[in-house]
């Protein structure tokens, strides 16, 4: 499961960012695909990006209400949330992949859940993504994407390539750029010790998707009759959740570790055990 997920994450990163030569030229892709919101966090200012970031697009529409709400962006985010929930985080987000790769560095790991810090991402969502763009629009006639401006580490990574390629942009780099670099470096360092700290404590897109985890099409199903409460799923969960008591918790990124390691196969992705049973019945019939 983990190998399959890693391959998917790499392919998705490449799918979101196919214009690799732009990383050296510093140009942005301006084709029709830029009108498509990708499900994961992927800054549209990354030179290699083919699509648009849903979070950036959402802030842009809230910061420019005189043009009317961009219902296309809002609908896209809702669709991803209702279909995938935080499966996007576990399988379809490039920055999630970056954090997981950094976590592989052999240093001591923090195994605590740090539950209280999980609320921070909802504060980030409410204040930086929703409130500040609207407030600055009301005050100045044009709101700014506050999360992108102050926090987003993925945008900073894209910015590094742009700044490296352009002397004009390099000349403009000042205190805000330094601040964002500090945020990025901080998250990278934390990622070595804590599994996906950005996803668990800061990401507002994960916060949105997590709210839909319980109703999303892709969700974890527990067979209570098969479950022996051995605690294996809780031990292996990288998000420090208890899948038996908290299946489809807003922090569950559907990595599938609990499913793969359950000794009695009591956990599955909803719908897949029906498919497996159908497959087993066909195999038995063919024998």
């Amino acid at each position, binding site marked *: 499961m983990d190998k399959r997920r890693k391959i998917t994450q790499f392919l998705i990163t490449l799918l979101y960012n196919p214009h690799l030569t732009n990383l050296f030229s510093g140009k942005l892709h301006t084709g*029709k695909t830029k009108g498509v919101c990708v499900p994961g966090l992927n800054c549209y200012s990354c030179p290699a990006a083919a699509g648009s970031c849903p979070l950036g697009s959402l802030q842009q529409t809230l910061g420019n209400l005189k043009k009317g709400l961009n219902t296309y962006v809002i609908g896209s985010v809702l669709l991803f949330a209702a279909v995938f929930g935080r499966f996007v985080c576990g399988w379809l987000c490039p920055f999630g992949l970056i954090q997981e790769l950094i976590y592989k560095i052999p240093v001591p790991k923090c195994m605590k859940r740090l539950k209280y810090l999980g609320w921070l991402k909802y504060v980030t969502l409410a204040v930086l993504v929703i409130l500040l763009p609207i407030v600055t629009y009301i005050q100045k006639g044009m709101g700014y994407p506050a999360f992108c401006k102050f926090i987003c580490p993925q945008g900073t990574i894209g910015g590094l390539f742009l700044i490296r390629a352009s002397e004009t942009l390099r000349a403009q780099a000042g205190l805000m750029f330094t601040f964002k670099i500090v945020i990025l470096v901080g998250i990278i360092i934390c990622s070595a010790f804590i599994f996906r700290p950005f996803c668990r404590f800061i990401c507002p897109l994960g916060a949105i998707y997590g709210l839909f985890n319980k109703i999303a099409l892709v969700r974890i199903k527990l067979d209570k009759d098969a479950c022996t409460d051995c605690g294996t799923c809780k031990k292996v969960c990288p998000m420090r959740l208890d899948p038996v008591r908290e299946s489809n918790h807003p922090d569950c990124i559907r990595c599938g570790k609990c499913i793969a390691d359950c000794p009695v196969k009591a956990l599955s992705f909803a719908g897949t055990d029906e498919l497996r049973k159908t497959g087993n019945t066909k195999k038995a019939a063919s024998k």
Partner: protein
Amino acid sequence: MKTGKAALIARIAVILLAITLISVGAYKGKTGDTRNKGSMICLECIGLG
């Protein structure tokens, strides 16, 4: 069972709402707006704004 049914109804409702919003947005040319924004360097996003 009741929770399962409620979740199913909620999921269908949200998906239908999402599809409606996407359709209305696409009809009003909002995909073009998204493309235009995405095609320009976002100075705030890269720490220069």
